[in-house]
């Protein structure tokens, strides 16, 4: 073979390989920079103060518990919406709707997934929260509930899209077998198809929820941003403030290198670790079920 050609192959292979490893490099870089800017917070603020219930940076109160509970209550609310609506719509599209309807509705639902979150927040301010204020007779409509409803809307498209793929991938013979044994279509869906697609549906839910924990603009715009501890059930009807919104709202106004700056990076680090945990769990569910399928087939 031509020698220059050989050289070219070697160089290109090296370049392509380097690019291939880039994803690992970026995850490490992100982790490194969050550690670098976030860990000093632990030296500057006592851990007991960091885990306190008062977030008031101007007077050096950096208790992140209200922000944690704020994120938690909004995410839980979004889950309560995403689970029935996400799975229900996926089942409808995959099992009940005629083919032409599925071809129209699935891209439409995915279109919502492409809607910029700032647009949802905008509608939240102008339409949803005034409606909630009047309808539920609240002092303000900018509440955890508004955040949860809109975040549900963000989680649903991801959930529907992936769960529908998983339901669609269940072999046709499963359906035929169940129907031939005299099961109704409904029984087939609940007792055969959903259990068979379980791991895919679970992954869909986890990825949908993963998106809600990290959502920033929508929650910053509609949850009212009050850093109060949200532990009661009725907290859903009052303003809360999430971790993401705190970073987005305050980072622009802090001095680089100040304690406040380091604490905001520390919150970023917490968010990063949460998303890492969610995504590794979600992907290990996929890997495990794949292995199980391989075992069954071999």
């Amino acid at each position, binding site marked *: 073979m031509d020698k220059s050609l050989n050289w070219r192959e070697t160089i290109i*292979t090296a370049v392509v390989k380097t690019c291939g490893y880039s994803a690992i490099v*970026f995850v490490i870089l992100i982790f490194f920079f969050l550690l670098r800017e976030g860990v000093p917070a632990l030296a500057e603020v006592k851990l007991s103060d960091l885990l306190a219930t008062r977030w008031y940076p101007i007077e050096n109160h950096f208790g992140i518990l209200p922000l944690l509970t704020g994120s938690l209550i909004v995410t839980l609310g979004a889950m309560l919406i995403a689970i029935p609506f996400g799975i229900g719509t996926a089942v409808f599209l995959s099992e009940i709707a005629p083919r032409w309807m599925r071809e129209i*509705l699935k891209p439409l639902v995915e*279109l919502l997934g492409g809607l910029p979150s700032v*647009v949802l*927040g905008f509608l939240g301010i102008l*339409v949803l929260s005034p409606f909630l204020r009047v309808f539920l007779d609240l002092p303000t409509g900018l509440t955890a509930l508004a955040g949860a409803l809109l975040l549900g809307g963000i989680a649903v498209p991801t959930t529907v899209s992936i769960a529908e793929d998983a339901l669609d991938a269940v072999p046709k013979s499963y359906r035929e077998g169940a129907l031939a044994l005299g099961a109704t279509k409904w029984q087939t869906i609940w007792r055969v198809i959903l259990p068979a697609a379980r791991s895919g549906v679970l992954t869909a839910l986890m990825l949908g929820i993963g998106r809600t924990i990290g959502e920033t603009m929508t929650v910053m*715009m509609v949850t009212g941003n009050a850093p109060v501890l949200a532990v009661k059930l009725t907290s859903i009807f009052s303003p809360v403030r999430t971790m993401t919104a705190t970073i987005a709202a305050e980072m622009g106004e802090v001095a680089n290198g100040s304690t406040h700056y380091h604490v905001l990076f520390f919150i970023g680090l917490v968010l990063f670790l949460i998303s890492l945990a969610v*995504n590794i769990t979600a992907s290990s569910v996929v890997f495990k079920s794949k292995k199980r399928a391989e075992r069954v087939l071999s």
Partner: protein
Amino acid sequence: MKRRFSIDRFLIQRLGFSLITLVAVLTVVPILGVFGYIIAKGAPAISWEFLTAMPRDGMRAGGILPAIVGTFYLTLGTAFFSVPLGIAAAIYLAEYAQENWLTRLIRIAIINLAGIPSVVYGLFGLGLFVLFLKFGTSILSASLTLSIMTLPVIISAAEEALRAVPQSFRTVSVSLGGTRWQTIRKIVLPQALPGIITGVILGLERAAGETAPILFTGAAFFLPRLPNSPFDATMALPYHLFVISTQVPEMPIQIQYGTALVLIIFVLGMNLIATIIRSRARAKRQW
């Protein structure tokens, strides 16, 4: 007894189907409502001046040209970094990588990149590009931040497109004396191109609509001129919408809806182009 049992079963089925259909309707109708509402409320605001003039009166009048141009530049800048890197990484995964622990690690890294909250990308961009590399609050810093965020979408879509090219294409090319790279460049890439372009556009669509990653890396609150270098900060449509709907008092409602409409046209237009490319390529495909 037996008869009642079977009636119950079908009654349950009918109730169940109605419930599921209701759930689907309750999901789809609000989606249509969101798009319809913004189009109806925003359309009256769109005029030639709105699209091509600078903002006036503290953004309460005039147009949104700098925000449109800014989002365009940011999208281009993101493409400049993420497209070559993403496609090369996809080529590595689809054509070179073996199934070993390192490849699995790359895949886990990609999944995690896709899941990192957008505001955390903003923090990272602030730490690395703005402060450590001293690029400042600029189009460059914001584009670099957005391109890392876009990378997992592009890699996954491009890899899928490459893997969809039948193995026999590669076998024939190699048997004719083509090297591995020649095979990839002349045979595999052209076949996978529509799929790759679709993935690239879907990734860039996300970047164009994002606000949180550019908040502290490149977005300007108000800048009544067009940026003239990559080291300038810029206005951007999503950030502008955030600003005028939360930070500016007495903002005319029409301008807000108009901005929202321009943003979704920008983003969904990209989505539409991707969909068209995909369906046309599918119709033409010979395998």
